């Protein structure tokens, strides 16, 4: 967790230029989908184009006003991915389905939420006060889909949705954020303790048993999600998030080894006990055997169709709108990567994967630049979660690892995932603003009352009140400037 100095320039104009390029890609993709039969500019094309353009420019303007020094590359990359997803979902809509317009609505809501977070959250350290509250919130969010009356029941084999009026919502997506806030707050406070205590065993420094508590708790939560909600993907995501954050906080390999042991034990037992995990493993390893391919439910039909689709696309793809990604089950959500592989080919898919890679490196860059350890850990955890999610989904679709039901961030249809990911992006932007902002070195103003230096015996007594006072003067200073 070292500090890195940054060249301090706001670079909002670079962001605007890249944002226009990103919008060109998004709108171009949308127009391309109807080109082969001349329906490019029909239907909702103009409405979607205008809404997407206006909303992204609005987020850009909010950044100009509120987070002048935020990272200039995050927003264009996210708009590219979101726009490509919109185009593909729009293209996959048949006469019966309306996923495209729903996705546009969720995108607008997501951008509005991101703008609100950037506008109201002036300092990310504010979230640190809610460390334990966010733990409780995460627990509530994770339990919600199991509560009768709230739950939307089992959809596609997993019980992760709740019913909110006419819509369904996946609270687990938001739990990702609150868990990252909790881990960041907990680890930045207790890091020294976890780091120093413990016995040495050869090259490894083993943690004390009571410091293992949160890790065991994270493991139990992940197992609980797996057992009760039958959601393998989220379970991997939550545990991976915790492992990444504790490794980044302590840089001790022993934690990673303990975590991997727990994953191995959990995975092995789950593969033996739970039929849905076993069938996932089977349709990964023996995807091309006749028996597994034809089995319903739990066969490998979806994966194999996706692979055939990508093979059909080849190097340069069939062109947007000219392939048949609709032959794959769930082409707009789980398998949207396969749809892109088919229509944009390997060359296009690589560009998309690179966009994710660049986005994640920007998140880590914000973490490197952040001056406080809470911000470092939060930015690191959020971007690692996004990276892990991409790896699990794209790895699953390309049969590198078993396919699990996670959503591809920003691309796949799904409102909860879009909202959660836009909030993550907003948090990364706020942290990168704090990291890149020049240090305020203006001298004391005459009206600033001298602080009350504590007598050396009781510095902690007024800790909380003083901290609040500092924050107030800090916002005031910004306002006057």
């Amino acid at each position, binding site marked *: *967790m*070292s500090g*890195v*100095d*940054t*060249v*301090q320039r706001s*670079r909002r104009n*670079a962001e605007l*230029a*890249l944002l226009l*390029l990103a919008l*060109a*890609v998004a709108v*171009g993709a949308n127009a*391309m989908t109807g*080109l*082969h039969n*001349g329906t490019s500019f029909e239907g909702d094309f103009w409405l979607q184009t205008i809404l997407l353009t206006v909303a992204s420019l609005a987020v850009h303007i909010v950044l100009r006003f509120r987070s002048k020094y935020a990272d*200039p*590359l995050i927003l*264009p*990359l996210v708009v*590219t991915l979101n726009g490509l997803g919109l185009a593909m979902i729009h293209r996959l809509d048949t006469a019966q389905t309306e996923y495209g317009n729903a996705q546009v609505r969720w995108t607008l809501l997501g951008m509005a939420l991101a703008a609100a977070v950037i506008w109201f959250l002036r300092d990310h*350290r504010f979230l640190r006060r809610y460390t334990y509250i966010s733990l409780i919130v995460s627990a509530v969010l994770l339990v919600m889909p199991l509560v009768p009356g709230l739950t939307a029941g089992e959809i596609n084999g997993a019980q992760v949705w709740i019913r909110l009026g006419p819509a369904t919502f996946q609270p687990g997506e938001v739990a990702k954020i609150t868990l990252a806030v909790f881990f960041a707050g907990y680890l*930045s406070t207790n*890091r*020294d303790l976890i*780091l120093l205590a413990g016995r040495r065993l050869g090259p490894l420094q083993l943690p004390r048993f009571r410091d293992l508590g949160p890790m065991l708790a994270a493991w139990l939560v992940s197992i609980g999600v797996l057992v009760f909600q039958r959601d393998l993907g989220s379970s991997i995501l939550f545990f991976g998030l915790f492992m990444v954050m504790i490794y980044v906080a302590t840089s001790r390999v022993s934690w990673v080894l303990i975590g991997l042991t727990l994953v191995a034990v959990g995975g092995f037992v789950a593969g033996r006990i739970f039929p849905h995990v076993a069938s996932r493993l089977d349709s990964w390893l023996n995807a091309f055997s006749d028996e597994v391919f034809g089995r319903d439910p739990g066969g490998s039909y979806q994966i194999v169709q996706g692979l055939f689709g990508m093979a059909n696309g080849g190097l*340069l*793809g069939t062109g947007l709108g000219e392939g048949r990604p609709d032959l794959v089950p769930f082409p707009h959500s789980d398998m949207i990567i396969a749809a892109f592989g088919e229509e*944009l*080919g390997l*060359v*296009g898919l690589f*560009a*998309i994967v*690179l*966009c994710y890679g*660049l986005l994640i490196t*920007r998140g880590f*860059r914000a973490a490197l630049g952040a*001056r406080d*350890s809470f911000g470092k850990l939060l930015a690191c955890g959020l971007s690692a979660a996004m990276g892990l999610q991409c790896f699990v989904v794209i790895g699953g679709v390309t049969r590198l690892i078993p396919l699990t039901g996670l959503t591809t961030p920003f691309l796949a249809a799904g409102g909860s995932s879009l909202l959660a990911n836009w909030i993550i992006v907003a948090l990364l932007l706020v942290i990168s603003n704090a990291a890149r902002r020049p*240090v*305020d*070195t*203006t*001298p*004391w103003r005459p009206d600033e009352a001298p*602080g009350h*230096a*504590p007598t*050396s015996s009781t510095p*902690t007594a007024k*800790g909380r009140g003083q*901290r609040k006072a*500092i924050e107030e*003067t*800090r916002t005031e200073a910004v306002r006057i400037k």
Partner: protein
Amino acid sequence: MNELTLTALRLGFLLLLWLLVFSVVGAMRRDLAIGRRNRTGAPSAREIRRNPELAEPPARQQARQLIVVEGPLAGTTMHLADSPILLGRAQEATLVLEDDYASGRHARLFPQGSRWFIEDLGSTNGTYLSDRQLTRAQPVDLGVPIRIGKTVIELRP
């Protein structure tokens, strides 16, 4: 629309996508200048020749060392180079304070121009520069006490 235009547009779209990726990478390049001195740093000799008013008043004495005056580490001295100094209880800090009232990453002393500045890093108990709590980075003059928990630090020539 004929086949040729369609193929051209298809490849053109892939090119556009990659153009975006490369522009982003190009924009990132500037950020790679990690650790380069800030633009607000000391003016170079050439800049001073062109604009004489940029030259710093020379008389001020430079801080050369940091000394712990009070607290568990009292008596410790440290040579000041050109790099920032992290103060705190964490092992990675430049000056590791064995002080129960200090945070892991408590404060940062950094050179800018010819002066040293101190900045609080969001510590729990705050940093005090001659009995005023820091709300932002402040220049530290020679012999002015910086209080972190029970520790008091001064800069000396």
